[in-house]
């Protein structure tokens, strides 16, 4: 494990992950919205 976790990297990593999760949730909303439009 050559790479290290520094506080700055760790924090950015956390932000990236959280952003991904939010993005996925957002996609979910888009899908439900699209399905309702198509109804």
């Amino acid at each position: 494990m050559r790479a290290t976790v520094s506080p700055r990297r760790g924090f950015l990593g956390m932000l990236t992950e959280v952003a991904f999760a939010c993005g996925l949730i957002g996609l979910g909303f888009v899908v439900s919205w699209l399905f309702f439009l198509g109804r």
Partner: protein
Amino acid sequence: MVIPMVTSLVFREWASALDFAISVILTLLVGYTLALISRTKNTPGLTHAMVIAAGSWLIAMVLSGVPYMLSGHMKSFLDACFDTMSGYTTTGLFLLQDLDHISQGLNMWRHLLTYVGGQGIVVLALTFLIGSTGGAFKIMVGEGKEEKLEPNVRHIAVLIWRISLIYLGVGTVVLGLIAMANGIKPYLAFFHGAYIFMSAWSTGGFAPYSQNMLYYHSSAMEIASMVFFILGSFNFALHYAVWSGNRKEILRNVEIVSFTITVLTTFSLVCLALIQRGVYPNAVALFRRGFFQLISGHTTTGQSNIYARTFVREWGPLGMLATTIAMAIGASAASTGGGFKGLRMGIIVKGIATDIRKLLSPERAVVTGHYHHLRDSVLSEGVVKSAALIVVLYILIYVVGAVVGMAYGYPMADALFESVSAGSNTGLSCGVTQATMPTLMKIVYILEMWMGRLEFLSVFTLFGFIATSFRSMRHGKAAA
């Protein structure tokens, strides 16, 4: 057990605190007694290690049930074992009676079980499965881990705990603040925050009250929890990669890609079913109810913002089946989640694609498949085979559990849903799991949760070890 005891003391729940004190003493007593009678100078081999891993689960299951039994909220000792197994395997199904009236201490215990169980499993997965299973679990960053296993175990465990504890802090504060904003008294709000975080991060699915997430009547609470349980379902090696600077990995990793695709696909099926039945009046409701259950299922969390029977009475068979499939596929490898695992889905799908390419290519062309998991790897026959083998084993336990349910008269959709929920350690329930459930079903679900959690290997090793011990005992007797 000390933490719940202190919790009970803080809330002045004297009887509950005493129950935990008794449990602590009893556990220590059993531990020291066992250590006393099994002192040996031999160092444990790999087989011994696997037996210890699997066997200690059973001991933990039984001893952890003591606080439950003492609380008087269990109908039987088997029920207590069910709940502790459910906790440690981060499943989330429960047979506890009258959840709405238990002590804060017992609630702390329940949620701690999933948090600790989840972390423990990740450490186990990342250390025991390196090198074995034909390369399908090459989940470490770097090269050649076989030689120096020991220092890496400690290193791994420390990293995992560090990431999890940081998220625990962040999560408790965030969820606690949301709870407070929603009207829960401040001193309670942060306990709720801790409980829900532990439930989410460990993809356990317990909640302090029987209404699960419905208790909070808060979309903010649900969304925050969703973020945490999605993250909790990720491979810890991925967390490590992203936290150490390799942020692009999150978009390239085969598990994340697989997860995103299967989430959107199964969710589309859910939407289809719900719209066809006209269950929800608008997109917001469809999203808030439909997506939450689906993603809770797919990450094998098991938190819910609808009543269990609503699955049966409103969602209907297709909605249930889509959710069942999502649960069956499950989360990422080396995470607290269960199911087939995204890694295997990705490997199998790519394996099929590669085979098709081979068929369509000229005879002499060399076709190799690749998959990206922290680094690019070759899709060898061995890798695809082991992935497929474990998937088959999962399907086996899912089906056996479903058949047992159906044999007792439960409808197929219900029985399959619940069986997959147990075997994938999800914990969503459609109403089948009750204390009044047939005893055999409880046992089958306990076994499903256990085997699903340990991905079969440790359990098979344990049984194999017991079998060979018996055989050698018999031979020994025959010789004598």
